[in-house]
């Protein structure tokens, strides 16, 4: 069970990934629209499912990989954060498919 500090840390962790993830998801959506002439929430969900883990990798493993030590001080391991990203991606995809 997460404590309040861990929740705040997770919010800070995902805050910086949110804007680039939405930007690239929208970009993929526009490319898809220009080809097929249609854009749906399902397409958004599928794009989001791939873009969020890519953002996670690029921002945290390539650009700022030593920052993991900060998350360790809050009890969040690399495995935990990677799993959380995977779950958020899949859940977003499922929700967008259901809507």
């Amino acid at each position, binding site marked *: 069970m997460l404590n309040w500090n861990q929740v705040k840390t997770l919010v*800070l962790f995902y*805050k910086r990934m949110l804007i680039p993830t939405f930007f690239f998801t929208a970009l993929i959506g526009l490319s898809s629209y220009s080809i097929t002439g249609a854009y749906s929430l399902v397409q958004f969900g599928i794009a989001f499912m791939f873009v969020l883990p890519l953002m996670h990798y690029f921002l945290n493993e390539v650009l700022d990989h030593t920052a993991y*030590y900060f998350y*360790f*001080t809050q*009890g*969040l*391991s690399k495995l935990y954060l990677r799993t959380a990203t995977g779950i958020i991606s899949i859940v977003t995809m499922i929700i967008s498919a259901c809507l």
Partner: protein
Amino acid sequence: MFMNTLHVDSIIKNIGDRLLLSDIFFTCQTKEIKALFGRNGTGKSTLFKIITGIEHAEQKFIKVNRDIIIDVNTSYKKVNYLPQHHFIPKHLKIRELIHLMCSETTIGKIIIHPIIRESYNKNSYQLSTGERRFIEVMVMIYSNAKFTLLDEPFNALSPIHKEHIQQAINDAAASKGFIITDHDYRSVLNLTQTTMLLTNGVLKQMSDPILLKEGGYL
């Protein structure tokens, strides 16, 4: 005050064919400041990472009081580790960092320092290397954990800031234990009561820092 005990026992770590750490044993209590010395590559940072559960070891038994430390999730409220490189995420504001890592009573002790007061609303990427390091070390010293492992806390700091760090460690040691490693051994020896030397995978307790010379460190 309740005395906490960090108990480190039976640590064995291999890197490839090389035995890096061999049956390491030591304890640390609240109010204790221990120094850990060793040449480059002897496994000091690896030992700290194993204690906090960041790195895997072939064998280990670590506990704080009665709680066994397995991974970062079981260690983070008890043992904190300051790595020798920057660790604050670049996008994080200093005030967010301080409020996440320190209690209300210790925040006051941190923000009296001009560097921290001036950086309070800045992101960490807006700070110089020295400013960032000073803040990282101060936040770790006053963090909520019962024990703090400091890996090269004096690196990249000016003499006046080293003094501030030494004062802060002495102040915080009233309620927690510290294990410090730094090649600026004079700054460390000013603080510590107990000295340990890691050499050829073996940890030796030194009754006198002069023995560091005999141990091949100096």
